[in-house]
């Protein structure tokens, strides 16, 4: 029997040089994390309870107090004001929360419905052809999202875009649809501008889940697939009775990861529409960015960040639970 190499953690006492090594590496790390992570984190929490603007001098400690008064839970109470005469920042916050939820609710199922069959299709072709297809669908992941936004902006362009040109060819007349800028365009009650951004987002984001699913498919033991084949399963039965159940843990995990990253969408929206038309694509992070850095109302923006953080945190905790219940086979 081959000797198993010991790779575990040594339990014996550390000698002086090891203790020095740990001291001179861990101490700077703790100080660094305290300064660059913990401190801004606490500061961010505090800001949410102040009416803070960096334009005003404020108190002596971090500019809090004085002209930047403590307002307690006022920001959070304002968020719950759903009356039509609520202040503009509250109404736009509600709008952007709705837009973000809609965005996530559309992106996640669409993403999974495309990537899962696509991964199965790519895995079904000859081994030599797989990297080619995978590369094509993965390429947008490697590109900067700003570049993606500009490419898609050109595709959607009312006069110069390819999309309207193709529609014009099909319909036999000039089509001038303003995909990203017409607030009156809706499809099943969903603003078309939002859908347009979603398609660009899906195109860029597909590659992540695709490669995760391809890896998961390769991890399904051949014995199980062979057994099903010998029992006479057709390709559809193979997919629904063997592949899908085996992939279930991966699907749950990717769904949550996709959800978390869709909640934080910013780049594409900011470049393609900047939240327009009429706030129809103003997602939460764009709302935060606008209030913090364009209007300098950082107290409000910090409060909204905190709410967004709580939403994402609950999703992350869900993810951690799924991670723990890894299937055995």
């Amino acid at each position, binding site marked *: 029997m081959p000797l198993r190499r010991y790779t575990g*953690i040594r339990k014996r006492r550390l000698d002086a040089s090891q203790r020095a090594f740990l001291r001179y590496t861990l101490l700077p790390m703790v100080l660094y994390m305290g300064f660059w992570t913990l401190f801004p984190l606490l500061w961010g929490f505090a800001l949410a309870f102040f009416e803070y603007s960096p334009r005003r001098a404020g108190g002596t400690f971090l500019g809090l107090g004085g002209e930047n008064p403590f307002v307690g839970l006022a920001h959070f109470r304002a968020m719950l004001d759903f009356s039509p005469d609520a202040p503009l920042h509250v109404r736009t916050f509600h709008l952007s929360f709705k837009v973000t939820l809609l965005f996530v609710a559309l992106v996640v199922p669409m993403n999974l419905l495309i990537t899962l069959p696509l991964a199965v299709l790519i895995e079904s072709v000859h081994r030599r052809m797989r990297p080619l297809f995978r590369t094509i669908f993965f390429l947008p992941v490697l*590109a900067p*999202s*700003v570049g993606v936004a*500009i*490419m898609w902006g050109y595709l959607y362009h009312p006069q*110069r875009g390819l999309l309207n040109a193709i529609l014009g060819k099909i319909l036999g007349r000039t089509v001038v649809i303003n995909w990203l800028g017409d607030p009156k365009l809706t499809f099943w009650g969903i603003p078309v501008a939002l859908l347009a951004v979603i398609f660009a987002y899906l*195109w860029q984001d597909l590659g992540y889940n695709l490669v995760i699913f391809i890896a998961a498919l390769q991890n399904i033991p051949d014995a199980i697939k062979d057994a099903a084949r010998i029992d006479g399963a057709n390709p559809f039965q193979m997919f629904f009775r063997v592949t899908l159940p085996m992939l279930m843990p991966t699907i749950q995990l990717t769904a949550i990861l996709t959800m978390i*990253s869709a909640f*934080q969408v910013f780049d594409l929206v900011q470049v393609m529409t900047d939240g327009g038309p009429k706030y129809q694509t103003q997602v939460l992070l764009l709302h935060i960015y606008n209030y913090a850095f364009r209007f300098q109302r950082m107290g409000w923006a910090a409060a909204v960040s905190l709410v967004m953080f709580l939403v994402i945190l609950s999703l992350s905790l869900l993810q951690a639970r799924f991670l723990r219940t890894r299937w055995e086979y």
Partner: protein
Amino acid sequence: MTVHTQRLSWKIFWREWIRPAYVILIPLSLLALVPFVWMILGAFKTGAEIRQIPPTFFPKQFTLENFRTVLTDPDLPLLLFYRNSAIIALANVVQVLFTSSLFGYIFAKFEFRWKGVLFWFIMALMMIPSQLTMIPGYLMLARLGLINNLLGLILPAAIDPFGIFLFRQFAHSIPNDLMDAARVDGANEFQIYWRIVLPQMKPALATFGLLTFMFNWNAYLWPLIVLTEQRVRTLPIILTWYSTRMGNKLHLTMAAAVLVVLPVLLVLMFVQRWIVKGITMSGLRS
């Protein structure tokens, strides 16, 4: 026998290479390339042609004029922006790889007081989305005078909790005999990390290094906040700035987009194997 093989290989060819999957895959992958193709074709059209209604698909006359205009624009010194992007991305790759591998190794191979608390703390930081520290982070940099300074994007980015986690997993598989042998030979602890452990981590270094490079190179929001002066901006920010300034001169915007997006995209394409590995191992996203 030979005849038989011939027939068999045809059968294999039919079974292995002609699949119904191609009927869906080939059109779909062509469709997926359209945004790239449309951008590239636009970059080669003349200003007059790009304004044409309805637009042409292939340029009637290929012109390199757009690239010349973009590259000689005195307001758009692309090389400077490439340099800025490269400094930030490379510096962050180097420091993140160093800290991740060092602390990953320490958490995997040493037992010390507070270890559990410290590791739990780092993992908790992993769950905190960056927008929570975005506003105070900006205020901190402003007080330190690091706004419009490339250091503002480098100094706060030295530790990546995800990297520590990943390298810890990786370091678990390094046999202790290696380190013990070096200790017997009189190497000090840092030498052991640097000479023995680090070379063992090459696959993890490549994977996580490329992921870090990609995320930094493509980053948008944080550089947008920290770098407001033209001379310190990075490529993604300069691309949106140029596109807004050029407005309807789409041929120039597309030429700039090609120059900004394609060179690094092609390089990343050749090393995507590592990036794919990193994503499938960790589920990490930008």
